């Protein structure tokens, strides 16, 4: 291990009554890739913002290269050799890549001299970048390379990366790891924030784990299992799904028969000849890399969008191919879209009003005037039954955290007692505790006799929940296979190469 780059001692930061960081200690050495692990809201980003001069700690000491420092601004932090790659990119959309790189460099403009330096740096680290294109035309991976290159131009001794791989393809992530390893071997200290445990175990030699603003452990991630790391992050026992009792499967509730859908918009995926059956009491998951037609499939099943060019959708035995979402709801279907705010809920509306969004199709909410007593009662029942943590008795949807809002949306649909539940990305951006709660809720729903279809990019989630998994690739859906007989390698192959459509019957 090289010399000590950073030592944080007793760092404390409170927002109102919430202690985001509570006496956090952390040490980073030169040449080290150090993981900062924790759930959403554990205080990782707050800690890093203090190290980058964006927030001021209430108490505690920051030492850089042994010297105590105060960091009143990001400029001061950069002057101390600290660079940061943000989770939500801090790029300027209408500017070219080169201009974006010039902005934080004191005294520089986007001229030929800077271009030469940037190109040299990019070659050295093998980062391919089109410097003259406006950022809004670039992919997520390209944008991140700009952010990294921008940080590298300042010759940082310490580089902070906040969940850098969440937007990358596996290949792009591998390329990033190679860059980080070469940086570390050149003497930089790297702080790597993530909650992808396998990635951390592959890349990092040390890990500091935060829970509820406190350091709960510092460990070598390669010496412990991913399950042990997960348990440290979320506390004991909350990650396990309770197995449901054996139950018989009933009638087919959802049946897609040779469904082909033309997409809306220019960037959509065309769905081709999709066959799928979900029976009552069964959980079926659709896995796949994002952007392979899952959104289009959800829209077609819910009746929200897409032009059906061939095939049939049947729900509860009836042909609903040409029917709208409300008549599908009246047949016992319930839908949870991917976007919690804006699609599943009205952000500014209180939870009691948001009940109406799906309940109006089937519930009696008043004939002429809205029955606010009833909507309020339904909202309270959802909040109690599904453990929705709210800041007040009837808050606006936007005031809830992602996990609690998702619990509310799922709960709102389950309160309608659906016979078919279709959920798009049930735990996207939700902390582990809420995710487990939502998954358990859906399993219980299936055990009670409903058909459940889950569309998920999280393979662990699909494996944990589903009786059968089908994989989406390039607008085709593979046959749904029983989970116990299915290996990860097999699913991985289906995700990247798909399956010949001729075999597609389930």
């Amino acid at each position, binding site marked *: 291990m090289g010399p000590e780059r950073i030592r944080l001692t007793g760092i404390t930061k409170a927002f109102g009554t919430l202690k985001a960081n509570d006496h956090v200690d952390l040490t980073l050495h030169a040449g080290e890739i150090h993981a900062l692990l924790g759930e959403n809201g554990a205080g990782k980003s707050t800690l890093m913002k203090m190290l980058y*001069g*964006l*927030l*001021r700690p209430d108490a505690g000491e920051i030492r850089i290269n042994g010297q105590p420092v105060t960091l009143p*601004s*990001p*400029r*001061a*932090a*950069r002057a101390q050799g600290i660079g940061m790659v*943000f989770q939500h*990119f*801090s*790029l*300027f*959309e*209408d*500017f070219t890549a080169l*201009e974006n790189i*010039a*902005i*934080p460099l004191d*005294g*520089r*403009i*986007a001229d030929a001299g800077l271009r030469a330096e940037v190109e040299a740096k990019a070659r050295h680290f093998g980062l391919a970048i089109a410097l003259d294109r406006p950022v809004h035309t670039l992919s997520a991976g390209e944008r991140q390379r700009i952010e990294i290159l921008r940080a590298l131009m300042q010759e940082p001794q310490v580089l902070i990366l906040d969940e850098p791989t969440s937007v990358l393809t596996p290949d792009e992530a591998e390329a990033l790891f190679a860059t980080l390893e070469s940086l570390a071997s050149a003497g930089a200290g790297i702080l790597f924030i993530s909650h992808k445990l396998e990635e951390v175990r592959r890349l990092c030699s040390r890990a500091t784990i935060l829970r509820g603003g406190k350091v709960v452990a510092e460990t070598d991630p390669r010496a412990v299992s991913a399950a042990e790391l997960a348990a440290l992050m979320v506390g004991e026992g909350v990650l396990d799904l309770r197995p449901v009792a054996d139950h018989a499967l009933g009638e087919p509730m959802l049946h897609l028969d040779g469904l082909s859908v033309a997409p809306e918009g220019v960037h959509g995926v065309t769905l081709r000849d999709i066959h799928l059956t979900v029976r009552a009491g069964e959980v079926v998951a659709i896995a796949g890399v994002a952007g392979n037609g899952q959104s289009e499939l959800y829209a077609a099943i819910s009746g929200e969008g897409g032009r059906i060019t061939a095939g049939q959708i049947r729900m509860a035995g009836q042909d609903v191919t040409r029917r709208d979402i409300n008549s599908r709801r009246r047949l016992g279907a319930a839908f949870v879209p991917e976007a919690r705010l804006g699609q599943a809920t009205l952000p500014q509306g209180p939870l009691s009003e948001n009940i109406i969004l799906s309940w109006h199709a089937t519930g009696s909410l008043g004939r002429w005037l809205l029955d606010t007593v009833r909507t309020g009662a339904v909202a309270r029942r959802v909040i109690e039954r599904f453990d929705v943590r709210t800041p007040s008795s009837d808050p606006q949807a936007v005031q809830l955290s992602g996990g609690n809002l998702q619990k509310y949306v799922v709960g709102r649909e389950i309160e309608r007692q659906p016979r078919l539940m279709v959920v798009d990305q049930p735990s996207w951006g939700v902390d582990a505790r809420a995710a487990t709660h939502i998954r358990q809720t859906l399993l219980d729903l299936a055990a009670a006799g409903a058909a459940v279809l889950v569309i998920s990019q999280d393979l662990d989630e699909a494996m944990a929940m589903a009786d059968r998994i089908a994989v989406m690739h390039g607008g085709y859906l593979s046959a749904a296979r029983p989970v116990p007989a299915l290996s990860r390698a097999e699913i991985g192959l289906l995700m990247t190469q798909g399956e010949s459509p001729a075999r597609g019957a389930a």
Partner: protein
Amino acid sequence: MEMLPFILATVFTAATPLLIAALGEHVTERAGVLNLGVEGMMIVGAATGFAAAVLTDSSVFGIIAGALAGMALSAVFALMVLVFATNQVATGLALTIMGLGLAGLIGQGFVGQPRAAIPPVQIPLLSEIPVLGKAIFTGDFVFFLSLGLIAFVAWGLNRTRFGLLLRAVGESHGSAHALGLPVKRIRLVAILFGGLLAGLAGAYLSLIYTRFWSPGMSAGRGWIALALVVFAGGHVWRLVLGAYLFGGITVAQLHAQAGAIGLPSQFLSALPYLMTIAALLFLSISGRKGAGAAGSLGQPFVPER
């Protein structure tokens, strides 16, 4: 043909205040601040400039005083918008109302007093060129200053580090703050620059264009300047083109009125304003509404602590 240099010169005179005010607002909006108080800053510049010129018997001093008065009013706007993070639209409208009232007060004792013209500047040799020489290379010093300002703004925004940072702050103040740029300080400079130019444009109106003061004499030119900035969509050359186009229409309608072409004079006087609406409508219909505007235009900036 003898009329042509004279007509061209009047076009430039009519266009110059629009151009100067619009250049200032262009810079302010590039920094992400929407200041709808241009009309107010302009009229205060006109009143203060005229009053100062009469009191000191110096039109040059009057022009400087007018510009500073516009800047002082923009400092009030900056205080509200940057420190108290008020709504920029409401604050800008209030600034215009306040400016109109304040100008009436300042100019109270000066209504109807005439001022002599500032002697024109003649560029040696170039002013001897037939037609163009008298139109372009002979004029008041503020006209030449406005040409310099075009180059200064275009070069400053696109070729200097400060221009890069100013545009970055306007594009996304969140990203700019995350990178440690002094968002508020940069915006303060942009707002003050906008106020300085609006005041200068106002002083030009009362001391060079009309050469007398009367309340409400800015007559909506501040709003036309704002429309020009929208029309320009972030390009200085389009702003210049638009300003001279409007100057041309203003002069054309004057000549049309004199020439009695049979249209009511009220309609002809309304022509520049109708053109403003037509230009904005055209931008809207062609689907370019808001295109080229700075990304965080009009949004208050409140950093977390």
